[in-house]
């Protein structure tokens, strides 16, 4: 069958037609002589992407028995998929079609109409040349894997796992500590986290791996190949999953002995978490000698300036601890040293009011130094002050969980300027990451309380539930790269370059091979190969040369 190519020039209403001479384009393209044995069908249309336009293209392809097609219209970022879908309804292979952008890169940017028309013809000419060098590609269908990997067994991870697990969806939850529960398990109110953890352990559709970390992951949404490692036995386990939830939580800034916090283990200086632990173990707050405190200072915001953000939860829990102290020791003085009070949730203001009217003091300060249990401060008027207490409770800044850098690298996701997992969009897509199918929830994103963590977990669950329907099919990228074995020297440069881990080395044949199910078709390996042995399908050098040749004619 001889080649017959359809070239369809879109007017885009007045958008293109108002700025180039469409009829001249159609005429000159019809008269092109350098496609001797090939037949050209050149037509214009008012709106190719409209329902009528798509019908028009479909009928043209079918009735003319077209083998190739060029649509000269807007940006392929707008409508490439539209026209690929039209091709799929016909006998023509969609990869024998190409789109030429005569709107954004031509009609709209070249003010002179004659010049713009000439340019459009040049671009279309390049497109026709290119399309003859394109090859048929065939999409494969893959069953999407509905299972989910949850990394981190704090409240955010547990809530995600409990809401996702079903008979049709296994959840693999990995936790680096010996037990799930996270920071909340070290707190004073253990009822809810114990209940949740018990539910988790009893859920037959959640597979829990403690003392475990992620070892390797490759693939994409619906098709991740995962390897995890037990950090004690070094045992590896492999499985597939369709999505990943990062719920690795946070760590706390170590303030002991720092510039402003001069104390040792012997001093009665406690972090919020240490008080929480006391409450949980002994149901009371006492000094290290077991005696009741007689005067307590509460230091807010330790490390806030250093890390550069407010940790959101600390004012709240220091107030909570004041409440415990007031109940236990109604008569002792309690004094908070506050730089800026942060009371974000609706219940916190009334709690603050209650503490204040109950005699808890709030000293606003510009700066603060701890020397053992003595507080030296400068108040907001610049006056220096000193107060001696016999117990200090301080709130440390929340910082990214240790190991976040390595994990982000494995998962190919971005971290923000502070080292927390970065949102795809802070405001409108806050639980997605830069990598499709990978979500981050809870304090892994930055300061979050339990309510925030639960809301985020449920949001990720909702997203995964609609994106990863059991039994659903996915179509992996077809415009992938391939390595021509005969030219490959086995230098393995491409292995280092591929960000997606899509290339492996075949030891027996001593060549590199692309795993097509993982390759995204970015073409980075092509640019890196010293022997020119990699072809990126649909963006091969001969195809691009055709565009270039016309461009510089």
């Amino acid at each position: 069958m001889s080649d017959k190519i359809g070239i369809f020039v879109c007017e885009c209403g007045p958008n293109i037609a108002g700025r180039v001479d469409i009829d001249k384009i159609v005429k000159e393209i019809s008269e092109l002589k350098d496609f001797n044995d090939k037949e050209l069908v050149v037509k214009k249309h008012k709106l190719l992407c409209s329902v009528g336009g798509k019908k028009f293209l479909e009928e043209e392809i079918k009735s003319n028995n077209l083998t190739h097609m060029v649509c000269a219209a807007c940006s392929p970022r707008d409508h490439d998929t539209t026209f690929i879908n039209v091709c799929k309804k016909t006998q023509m292979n969609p990869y024998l079609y190409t789109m030429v952008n005569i709107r954004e890169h031509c009609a709209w940017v070249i003010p002179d109409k004659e010049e713009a028309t000439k340019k459009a013809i040049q671009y279309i000419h390049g497109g026709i040349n290119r399309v003859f060098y394109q090859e048929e590609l065939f999409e494969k269908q893959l069953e999407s894997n509905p299972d989910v990997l949850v990394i981190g067994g704090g409240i955010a991870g547990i809530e995600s796992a409990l809401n996702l697990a079903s008979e049709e969806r296994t959840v693999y939850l990995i936790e680096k500590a010996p037990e799930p529960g996270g920071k909340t398990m070290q707190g004073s109110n253990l009822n809810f986290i114990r209940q949740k953890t018990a539910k988790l352990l009893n859920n037959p559709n959640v597979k829990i791996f403690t003392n475990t970390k992620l070892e390797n992951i490759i693939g994409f949404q619906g098709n991740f190949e995962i390897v995890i490692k037990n950090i004690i036995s070094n045992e590896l386990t492999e499985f597939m999953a369709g999505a990943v939830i990062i719920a690795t939580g946070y760590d706390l800034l170590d303030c002991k002995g720092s510039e402003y916090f001069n104390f040792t283990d012997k001093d009665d200086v406690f972090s919020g978490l240490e008080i929480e632990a006391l409450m949980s173990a002994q149901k009371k707050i006492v000094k290290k000698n077991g005696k009741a405190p007689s005067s307590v200072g509460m230091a807010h915001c330790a490390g806030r300036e250093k890390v550069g953000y407010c940790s959101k939860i600390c004012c709240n829990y220091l107030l909570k601890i004041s409440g415990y102290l007031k109940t236990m020791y109604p008569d002792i003085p309690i004094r908070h040293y506050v730089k800026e009070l942060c009371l974000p949730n609706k219940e916190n203001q009334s709690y603050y009011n209650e503490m204040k009217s109950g005699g808890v003091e709030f000293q606003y300060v510009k700066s603060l130094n701890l020397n053992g249990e003595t507080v030296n401060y400068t108040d907001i008027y610049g006056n220096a002050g000193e107060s001696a207490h016999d117990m200090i409770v301080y709130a440390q800044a929340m910082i990214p969980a240790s190991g976040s850098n390595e994990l982000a690298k494995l998962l190919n996701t971005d971290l923000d300027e502070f080292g927390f997992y970065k949102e795809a969009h802070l405001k409108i897509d806050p639980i997605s990451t830069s990598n499709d199918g990978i979500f981050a929830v809870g304090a892994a994103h930055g300061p979050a309380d339990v309510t925030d963590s639960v809301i985020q977990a449920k949001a990720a669950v909702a997203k995964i539930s609609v994106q990863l329907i059991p039994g659903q099919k996915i179509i992996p990228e077809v415009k992938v790269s391939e390595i021509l074995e005969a030219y490959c020297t086995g230098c393995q440069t491409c292995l280092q370059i591929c960000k997606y881990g899509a290339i492996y080395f075949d030891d027996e044949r001593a060549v590199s091979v692309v795993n097509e199910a993982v390759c995204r078709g970015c073409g980075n390996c092509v640019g890196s190969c010293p022997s020119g042995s990699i072809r990126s399908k649909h963006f091969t050098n001969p195809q691009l040369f055709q565009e270039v040749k016309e461009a510089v004619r």
Partner: protein
Amino acid sequence: MEEFKPKIVGFLCNWCTYAAADMAGAAKTKLPSSFNVVRIMCSGRVDHNLLLTTFFNGADGILVAG
């Protein structure tokens, strides 16, 4: 003498600079007609072969942006 209009080929990444060029187009930014866009899926795709062939074919300049 005729004004020198350098023929420039821009290899633009689909995800960033090509998208930016689309936005520049939507804003009706003026471009000389001797500038030519070639879309690629990542600027890392560009190899020496592509660059040299572009020069051999007569380009005066190449812009790889991504």
